[in-house]
């Protein structure tokens, strides 16, 4: 990847991470860990790949993204804000009464393509959007992001079967494989591993990537766009809490907001990282 573009993406991602932390801190609740683990892939999608139009969020031919792991809405909201759909200031009112930004994605928010949050459902809606595209010969692409714990839901595999049966090659599912879910490590709760083999068995083209390396993310999506006749599953190996040292790979940061001291520490780390990038 071009070094200038990479640096630009890293700067966007750093700002998005700051938005996530600020939003969850101001809300005094929310899910920072899994939001931070998808910040890079969301940055890559919304700043290089997706045809979206902040001035015209409902444009019919736009590419679409369904955040099936809807509890990580802070990451989607901060990305949409960074992309210009609404001011980043909105993050301060996340989850507040009367605010636009609901605890989980809501279709009425500019740039949000589908309400989600009850796990396992977003991928089905993404299948429906992709099917509509195929039905009408539209050229848009549909992305959906799932948690690795989320795929324990049976509906995910109904959708996986459906997508391959109808050859939905205009659908890319990203599985955020950070290895942690609320009750602990996947391996300790009720393991859905091996994930790549499962998607392959369901007829998907499977690609694995490092979720925090833009060169590798770019490689994975370039491979994905060459696939025809079947849907693509990108298993992204990620670190939950990525970018805030004390949150990384810690199950306790799944659904907990930082207190003031922790917020200041996290914000200082992210600010320092941003300053290094902008220097």
């Amino acid at each position, binding site marked *: 990847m071009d070094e200038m573009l990479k640096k630009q993406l890293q700067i966007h991602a750093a700002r998005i991470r700051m938005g996530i932390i600020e939003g969850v801190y101001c809300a005094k609740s929310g899910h920072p860990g899994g939001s931070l683990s998808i910040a890079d892939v969301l940055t890559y999608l919304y700043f290089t790949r997706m045809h979206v139009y902040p001035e015209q969020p409902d444009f019919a031919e736009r590419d679409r993204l369904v955040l099936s792991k809807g509890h990580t809405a802070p990451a989607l909201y901060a990305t949409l804000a960074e992309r210009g759909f609404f001011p980043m200031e909105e993050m301060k009112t996340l989850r507040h009464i009367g605010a636009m930004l609901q605890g989980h994605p809501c*279709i009425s928010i500019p740039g949000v393509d*589908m309400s989600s949050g*009850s796990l396992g459902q977003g991928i089905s809606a993404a299948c*429906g959007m992709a099917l*509509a595209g195929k039905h009408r010969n539209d050229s848009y692409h549909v992305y959906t992001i799932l948690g690795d714990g989320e795929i324990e839901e*049976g*509906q995910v595999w109904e959708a996986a079967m459906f997508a391959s049966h109808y050859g939905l090659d205009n659908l890319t599912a990203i599985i955020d494989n950070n290895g942690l879910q609320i009750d602990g490590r996947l391996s300790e709760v009720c393991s859905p591993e091996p994930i790549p083999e499962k998607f392959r068995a369901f007829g998907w083209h499977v690609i694995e990537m490092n979720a925090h390396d833009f060169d590798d993310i770019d490689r994975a999506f370039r491979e994905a766009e060459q696939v025809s006749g079947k849907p693509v599953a990108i298993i992204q190996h990620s670190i939950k809490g990525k970018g805030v040292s004390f949150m990384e790979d810690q199950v306790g940061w799944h659904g907990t907001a930082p207190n003031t001291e922790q917020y200041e520490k996290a914000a200082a780390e992210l600010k320092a990282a941003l300053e290094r990038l902008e220097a």
Partner: protein
Amino acid sequence: MGDTIKKATRESYGEALVALAEKYDNLVVLDADLAAATKTGIFKKAYADRFYDCGIAEANMMGVAAGLAAAGMIPFASSFAMFAAGRAYEIVRNSIGYPHLNVKIGATHAGISVGEDGATHQCCEDIALMRTIPGMVVINPADDIEAKAAVEAAVQHDGPVYCRFGRLAVPVINDPATYKFELGKGVTLRSGSDVTVIATGLMVNEALIAADTLAGEGISVRVINIHTIKPLDQELIVQAARETGSIVTAEEHSVIGGLGSAVAEAVSEAYPVPVRRIGVNDIFGHSGPALDLLKQFGLSAEHIAEVVREAVKSK
């Protein structure tokens, strides 16, 4: 009665979809491996390229329907009421109801008139479930004519609609030449002053028979057909409460949460009068021929007449 035409509303559903396909080119039909039974097979035969089988996976089917609607299509998602409203309830609530997407649910084989398949397939809770979802329209047509009109009304309505159809062939009671369907509007089929019977679905015909019987006994029964359970025609129902002072409801559904509950809620808030509910009395069904089951469960003109007589006596 020998020349009465009978037809199952599931047949009407399949035929209506075909009839509307040309006019609404963004209409597509989904089913979950029950096309032969739900009668979407009729549509599949006519418009194979607009029919998508989802396999035995109702949860995903409802989500796919949500995605299709979010992308501008008008999907009809079809299955038995048990699975459409029951199994997929949470997907209908969160993926269709909450984003208020333009999905139409065609739920067939509702109620105990499913017959021999027994309790696992006799859904008597679907109206209750669907009616609790904000913004969901719930329609339960009485016959072929009304069912076909209901399907078109569902297409014309922008938002989620639950349409309930039956397996059993039921008498055609409406005149196609004069029939007009108005979403959310009840229909007064008989005027009367002693008691009002408010019925829905296949119980409308039973209510009419009961009213005729009771007329011979000097009891004047008003009969109202409520095809749209949500939004409910409160005005017509409250007027009936005021003018007749006594209400009997009749539905092929649990007495909990369906038409009887909806009517009792409306009346108790606006003009309290006694409401007697005829329906499935908080019990599961069982196997047997549909007509025998309906009789056994009190879903008959005879039972309506009995309850009306009690209502008159206690006035």
